[in-house]
């Protein structure tokens, strides 16, 4: 009932808006036509103002009908002032195109950052733009996820993974979106790289928690990656070649047709080591038929069409695959025995074909129904699949005298997971009431899961087929949400919202309330509070202790299991100092319920002639909590920029089998120091660095050895035997040594025959510090007697010291 009173009150306020006008429009980059988000737009000599959203759109309501001046400014662009004459009830449309300025003055930078800080109510949110991505030391090449991993609150599992563990949440609890489309497995090469080509990224919005009601379906964090729209003014291209991949980006305006305007952008990359290896290997490989078996590629395409001033259509596509293709030339075997006149000829072929990746498409229709009312309708498909296919075939013929025959033995093994997501979403934002930004919408998400395993054997007489694992699900998630950002007073803002969800496998209707408060203690010093509940209806079924993860096994939450949820409580303080430092400290508590953890064990066993599996639906009930304190000192302007982030975190999970334990990604202390310095004596030379120090991760320590009893059951004679194993202590009761890594980089812009290019050098793990991935154990042996003494262990190291170079050429 209170909600209805609240809405009625809002509409009463709306009716009072009669003697005022509205100014709205877009702010874009003059050179490229890219929308400029977080641009400051205000009416001179008044307190009326606002900032542009991610589309570069602004709307100022309740502007007195009068003449005046509107000012638009943003970091790195020249300030624009324009006179206007606004009549009563008029909706004035003013679009701006800002010119980039070479003067990146400190004041402008701080001003832009301050605008973001002042505008946002929710805590734990940070935007990462291309400049930040490119100025962070990179592993081989700039990577969005690797940069996010350096932020406070984000933990890493190991050097080989760019997966994000955020405030006690696992990667499957994060919603990763590309232009609003859910991407299910956003990694290449088992997580070493993220799938997002940084050349195409305009910016990424990262919410570590407490995100507003417009986002749902996940209980961890949100990473929304926005691609560039493409240059509306001229054709441009960038090429980039690094140690492992070559990249190309092209963009330009669409040809003008019957008043339609638009832009396009396509960016692609491909690893070339396979091509390089095959070329170097030459005849030797050609003879054996061996080819380097792995490569990955991806491309992103975006097309915008402005149908008219109020309608825009955007098509966005992402297509990326990793391909492991092991194949050999067929082996032909011939045998002839002259004494028995026996002749046999056989051919053996063997191959593994394993593609995995994401394919997404989306079509977005943005409609400015009125300056205050903007609708965005979005249809997207997202497909993640891996398909491991192994084939072996042996066929041949034989003859002895007049007798002859043939034989065939073929077997194949397939293991696959296909997730197909279709989403229809409409989001309406309304700025019709002064001091309120109301947003509502619905989302319909259908997800088809197909996780299976097939085995087939064939000979000339018979075919044997088994499907030991088949899990097919179709789930439909219907959501409604509404949220209001209400500037209650000049120093108080509230963000109140809720999300209602229906999950097709459950009878229940779920409701997630979200609440945010920002209180300005003084200018540029704000206190933020966020509380909310977050439900999730899907999970991954990978063993939680696996050392390296290549692929994810996605499942919808089964009908007989309650939906997992988490409560977030976040309290933070932000301060922007006059000398360009942004200081943020946040503390959080998260409580998780109804999590599920896979019963780990051998998932496939092949004994005698039988293949059996441990089903993926054998789960343990799990609950968890996480709390922590994060500090961020960020230098946002000047010749030296970067941040120091410190995280104190504790995460614990509980399953009946183990009791409370630290998950593998728990790190108590994490300190990241990241910086970029423009060196004074050499033109355009940048030096960047990243220092990562953190507590060691938990692992389950062996404490002894014993013989595990095993049995071989047989129709004639059962046998009980023993197998020496490690006896382990409590799960994850010990910690690996402290993690330390220092990465350095140099980057310089140059020109060759008038073609600008950038060259870079990256040094990874400069001190060659041994950071253990795990321990391996072996028995010590008395070399004289052969007696087996105790055990010894060695750390399995992650990245050693190495370096990479690359060039980036602008066409």
């Amino acid at each position, binding site marked *: 009932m209170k909600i209805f009173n609240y809405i009625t009150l809002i509409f009463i306020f709306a009716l009072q808006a009669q003697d005022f006008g509205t100014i709205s429009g877009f702010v874009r980059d003059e050179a490229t036509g890219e929308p400029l988000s977080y641009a400051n737009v205000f009416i001179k000599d008044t307190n009326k103002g606002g900032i542009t959203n991610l589309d570069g759109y602004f709307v100022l309501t309740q502007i007195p009908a009068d003449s005046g001046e509107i000012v638009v400014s943003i970091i790195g662009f020249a300030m624009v002032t324009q006179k206007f004459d606004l009549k009563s009830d008029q909706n004035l449309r003013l679009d701006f195109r800002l010119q980039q300025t070479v003067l990146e003055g400190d004041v402008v930078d701080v001003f832009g950052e301050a605008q973001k800080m002042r505008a946002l109510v929710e805590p734990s949110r940070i935007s990462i733009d291309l400049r930040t991505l490119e100025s962070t030391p990179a592993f081989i090449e700039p990577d969005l996820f690797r940069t996010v991993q350096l932020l406070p609150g984000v933990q890493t599992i190991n050097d080989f993974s760019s997966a994000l563990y955020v405030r006690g949440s696992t990667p499957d609890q994060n919603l990763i979106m590309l232009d609003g489309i859910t991407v299910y497995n956003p990694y290449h090469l088992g997580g070493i790289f993220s799938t997002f080509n940084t050349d195409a990224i305009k910016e990424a919005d990262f919410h570590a928690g407490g995100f507003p009601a417009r986002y749902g379906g996940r209980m961890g964090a949100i990473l929304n990656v926005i691609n560039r729209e493409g240059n509306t003014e001229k054709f441009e291209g960038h090429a980039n070649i690094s140690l492992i991949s070559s990249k190309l980006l092209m963009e330009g305006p669409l040809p003008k047709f019957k008043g339609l305007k638009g832009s396009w952008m396509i960016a692609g990359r491909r690893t070339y080591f396979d091509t390089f290896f095959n070329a170097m290997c030459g005849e030797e490989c050609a003879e054996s038929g061996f080819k380097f078996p792995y490569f990955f590629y991806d491309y992103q395409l975006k097309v915008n069409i402005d149908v008219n001033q109020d309608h825009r259509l955007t098509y966005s596509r992402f297509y990326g695959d990793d391909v492991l293709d092991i194949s050999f030339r067929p082996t032909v075997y011939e045998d002839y025995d002259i004494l028995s006149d026996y002749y046999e000829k056989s051919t053996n072929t063997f191959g593994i074909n394993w593609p995995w990746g994401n394919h997404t498409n989306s079509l977005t229709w943005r409609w400015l129904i009125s300056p205050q009312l903007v609708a965005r309708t979005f249809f997207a498909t997202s497909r993640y699949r891996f398909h491991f296919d192994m084939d072996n075939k042996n066929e041949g013929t034989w003859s002895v005298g007049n007798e002859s025959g043939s034989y065939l033995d073929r077997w194949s093994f397939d293991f696959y997971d296909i997730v197909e997501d279709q989403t229809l979403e409409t989001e309406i934002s309304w700025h019709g009431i002064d001091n309120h930004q109301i947003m509502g919408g619905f989302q319909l998400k259908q997800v088809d899961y197909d996780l299976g395993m097939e085995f087939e054997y064939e000979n000339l007489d018979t075919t044997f087929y088994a499907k030991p694992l088949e899990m097919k699900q179709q789930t439909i998630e219907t959501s409604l949400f509404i949220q209001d950002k209400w500037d209650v007073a000049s120093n108080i803002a509230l963000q109140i919202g809720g999300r209602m969800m229906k999950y097709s496998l459950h009878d229940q209707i779920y409701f997630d309330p979200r609440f945010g408060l920002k209180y300005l203690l003084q200018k540029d010093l704000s206190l933020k509070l966020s509380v909310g509940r977050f439900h999730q209806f899907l999970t991954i079924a990978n063993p939680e202790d696996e050392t390296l993860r290549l692929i994810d096994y996605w499942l919808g939450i089964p009908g007989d299991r309650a939906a997992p949820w988490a409560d977030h409580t976040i309290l933070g303080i932000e301060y922007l100092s006059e000398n360009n430092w942004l200081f943020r400290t946040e503390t959080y508590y998260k409580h998780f319920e109804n999590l599920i953890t896979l019963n*780990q064990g051998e998932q496939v066993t092949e004994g005698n002639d039988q293949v059996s599996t441990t089903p993926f639906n054998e789960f343990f009930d799990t609950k968890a909590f996480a709390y922590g304190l994060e500090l961020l000192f960020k230098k946002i302007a000047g010749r030296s920029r970067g941040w120091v982030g410190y995280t104190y975190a504790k995460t614990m999970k509980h399953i009946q089998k183990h009791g409370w334990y630290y998950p593998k990604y728990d790190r108590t202390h994490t300190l990241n120091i990241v910086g970029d310095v423009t060196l004074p004596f050499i033109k355009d030379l940048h030096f960047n660095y990243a220092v990562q120090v953190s507590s060691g991760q938990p692992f389950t320590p062996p404490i002894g050895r*014993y013989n595990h*009893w095993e049995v071989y059951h047989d129709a004639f004679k*059962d046998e009980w035997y023993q197998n020496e194993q*490690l006896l382990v202590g409590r799960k994850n009761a010990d910690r690996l040594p402290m993690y330390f890594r220092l990465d350095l980089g140099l980057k310089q812009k140059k020109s060759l025959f008038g073609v600008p290019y950038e060259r870079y050098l990256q040094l990874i793990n400069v001190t060659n510090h041994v950071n253990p991935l795990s321990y391996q154990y072996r028995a010590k042996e008395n070399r004289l007697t*052969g007696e*087996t003494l105790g*055990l010894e262990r060695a750390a399995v190291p992650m990245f050693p010291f190495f370096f990479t170079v690359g060039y980036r050429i602008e066409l």
Partner: protein
Amino acid sequence: MIYIYIISIFFISCTILPPDLEWEDVTSDHESTLNIIGLISADSLITSFVRVQRTLDMEEASDSLIRDTIGGNIYIYYTSQFIVRNAEVVVKNGVDEYIFEYKDFSFDVNQNEVFQEVYLYNGNDLNPQQGEIWTLHVTAPGGFEVTGQTTIPPTPEIFTEDLPDTFQIYREMEVSWQPMNDNYQLINSGHLGGEYGYEYICGINQEFIISPEESSGIYRREWCDPEAYESSWDEGLLFFSLMSMDNNYYDYFIRYGDAEFTSAFGSGSSGRSFGIDGGIGVFGSIAIDRHSMIMIP
């Protein structure tokens, strides 16, 4: 020029090797405990036995070299430090008490070794009956003491009257048995006969676990490589073995038979115990029914 530069840097990168593994001793404050497997068999062909071992800590040697003189001959061999040879092992059924004695080796009637480093009962009056509760008491030097308890499972029964006298390969046959309310069973089949004796034969359901209440299954066998074997074989024997087991046996060997912790670098276990108190391992019981029939091509 750029191309050459990249290639040369790549070559340098490849020459940077990861650091050598540095091996270090591992210590632990683990207190040794007894590790037992005790099996009470209600089947006349399987001997009841108990094995008594202990766990070792990380720095303890797992074997030692022994020089022994037996009958004037010198023997040098390794002996396992896991094995406890001087324990007192007593098994009771509530009425009688059976003392099991340690044997380094035990032979069957054909003088084939069937047991090694095991505790066996020397008498022939150990005769477990279904539903009986049997207990285990192990006392070892050093103050180790372990007890265990198992309930003898019902005797399984294959309904042979429903089976044909002869099974033809490639055909399907329904096998049924007495279902059990509270116990799991395990059925196994095997083939004996033919030119090569015990041959490997393909077929589904060669071995499978029978849940409580299950009463039948479809059986099928076929040759893996018909051209190699079929022509040289005309008749053999098909064996079925139906084993019932108590819950301790099922939990240890089947339900939790897989490694408890696995990683790319090894596997381990927290040392589960089923039917055992004061140590780790399993004290279980089984009963078996068997049946054979002629199998023809």
